[in-house]
């Protein structure tokens, strides 16, 4: 049985349905991310798990117990906020000890636990500092320690890295994951950054407009997106317009060049307009052999990003972005050069309907 079970959760604010029929089963120790754009409802679901919002309907069960009607201070859930929310009038040690203090634990136990927590977040010497004396990254680590000090059953994180610098975000990301793994605590992480979600999670819940679009491992949702939204939201994607030529043979036309799609053309009629999607890493700047698709075009833009070189190749109306690795021996191609790009037939994802103009 799942450790955290959310059934048919709904939330309505006035006339707006913010969360619609949310179902999720989380195993003990899993790291789950809620991924989606602003306003998709991910934070609302998190707050309902925490108890700050009452669901309009549905149930939340933790370890078999129905907590839907419990107030937040009785759920034994830990939460880390986007704005850290450290108590400014207490030292770091005071903050971390807070949950234990209000539970009237003995002083010795509190002191030991605080020390343990500070070691866990690698800030053992900062116990006597005040929040305003700490950097953003340090404050967030203290917030994490504070949430974990009470040994919660579930850890909730509400976009904890959004307010931090890029470099710190990456290092803190890894730290959070390490701590979570070591403690084996069931965790839910809300973010709009797909790189975060993909790199940290066991499973990802992609949300849009209050609905779940797809639940799966990072590999699954990246490579096998079930809806157009997931395909375009997770990772970068090339989307091209094409015209169906011969559905039986699977041929389609992109800017008057014919290629073959190995799947997804069922039920299509000749002459129909469709959209196809291609991951940048699937496209190669070489003329490949065998039954790979080939397209002729002109190099429009070259962006040198360090390890990656991102090249945009234009056909006529459509263009494709592709990524190649930097090679010190071979400088990137010039703009305006004529070139051929290739990609495997299987890499072409045919989406429903045509891309809106």
């Amino acid at each position, binding site marked *: 049985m799942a450790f955290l079970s959310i059934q048919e959760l709904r939330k309505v604010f006035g006339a707006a349905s913010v969360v619609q029929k949310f179902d999720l089963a989380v195993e003990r120790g899993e790291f789950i991310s809620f991924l989606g754009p602003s306003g998709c409802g991910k934070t609302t679901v998190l707050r309902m798990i925490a*108890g700050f919002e009452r669901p309009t309907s549905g149930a939340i069960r933790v370890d078999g117990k129905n907590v839907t009607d419990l107030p937040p*201070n009785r759920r034994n859930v830990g*939460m880390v906020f986007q704005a850290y*929310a450290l*108590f*400014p009038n207490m030292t770091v040690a005071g903050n971390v000890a807070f949950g234990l203090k209000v539970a009237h634990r003995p002083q010795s136990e509190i002191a030991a636990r605080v020390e343990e927590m500070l070691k866990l977040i690698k800030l053992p010497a900062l116990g006597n500092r005040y929040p305003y004396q700490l950097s953003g990254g340090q404050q967030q680590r203290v917030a994490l320690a504070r949430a974990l000090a009470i040994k919660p059953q579930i850890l909730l994180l509400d976009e904890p890295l959004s307010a931090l610098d890029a470099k710190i975000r990456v290092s803190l990301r890894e730290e959070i994951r390490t701590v979570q793994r070591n403690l084996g605590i069931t965790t839910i992480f809300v973010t709009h950054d797909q790189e975060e979600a993909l790199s940290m999670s066991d499973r990802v819940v992609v949300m849009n407009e209050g609905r779940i679009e797809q639940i799966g491992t990072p590999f699954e949702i990246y490579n096998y997106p079930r809806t157009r939204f997931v395909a375009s939201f997770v990772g970068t994607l090339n989307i091209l317009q094409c015209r169906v030529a011969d559905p039986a043979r699977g041929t389609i036309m992109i800017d008057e060049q014919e290629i073959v799609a190995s799947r997804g053309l069922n039920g299509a009629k000749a002459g129909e307009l469709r959209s196809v999607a291609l991951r940048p890493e699937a496209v190669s700047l070489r003329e490949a052999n065998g039954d790979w698709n080939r397209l002729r075009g002109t190099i429009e833009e070259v962006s040198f990003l360090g390890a990656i070189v991102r090249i945009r190749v234009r056909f006529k109306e459509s263009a494709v972005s592709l990524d190649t690795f930097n090679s010190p021996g071979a400088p990137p191609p010039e703009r305006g050069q004529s070139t051929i790009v290739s990609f495997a037939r299987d890499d072409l994802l045919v989406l429903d309907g045509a891309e809106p103009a």
Partner: protein
Amino acid sequence: MVVQTIVEDFPPIAATPRRRLSWNWLGVVPFFAFTALFLLLPTGLLMVGAFQDADGYFTLNNIRNLFTETIWNAYKISIEVSLASALLGALLGFLLAYAVIGGGLPRWLRPTLMTLSGVASNFAGVPLAFAFLATLGPTGLVTVLLMYFFNFSLRSTGFNLLSFWGLTLTYLYFQIPLMVLIMTPALDGLKKEWREASSILGATRWQYWRHVALPVLWPSFLGSALLLFANSFGAIATAYALTGSSLNIVTILLYAQIRGDVLHDQNLGYALALGMIVLTGASNIFYIWLRARSERWLK
């Protein structure tokens, strides 16, 4: 080689700043001249005069005479009225501000309260005294209505508008709004996330207030109370119109002294003024210190 040329191209640093500095200083000369003449000098000379006798020699006699009966009583009453109106005003103003900000009331109430507070905090002096006379005075509306509807005589409770508590009650009319205006930003500073964080860590509402909210708020609260104290201490027009010379507060005493040299000793008047400045000055300094402290926390 390139670097060397660049360094040589620039003129020595000493030349330019002095010229530029003098033009800048010119811009603020009017301000300093004005405040020196019409703010600092008059006050400063008064303070010096408090330590002089009629012939200009240094003495502490004036300070000593501050503790004579009439004057000391005046200070006592002033301090009592100011304390009462400051503490009550602070408490009631705080509750009002809290009700509007965190009490779950309709949105439009807050700007309305702010505007009304802005008006009420400026409505003081003679008109305010009249207003309260018209309300709770012997022929005031409330007094009359209480008698008419409930056969309840306000006078029988011992309440007299022209007294200590009457004056305090009247002062509250501008003290409470002042408190509301000052405390509202401080209450805004109480982040919602703190309440939620404390709640998810297991704290009850009372524990939150005791361990987080009150400690964060009390510097602002105390500082505002001090501001109210200084405000009340320096007030005169309201008291003059309401209680006249029956309630001998320091400002009225000083007023009478300036008017007609009642004390027959100008330097004693200076000492009176000095005493006032010391009290209000201390309050304000303490207020600024407290405010700086709370701002540092809430950075």
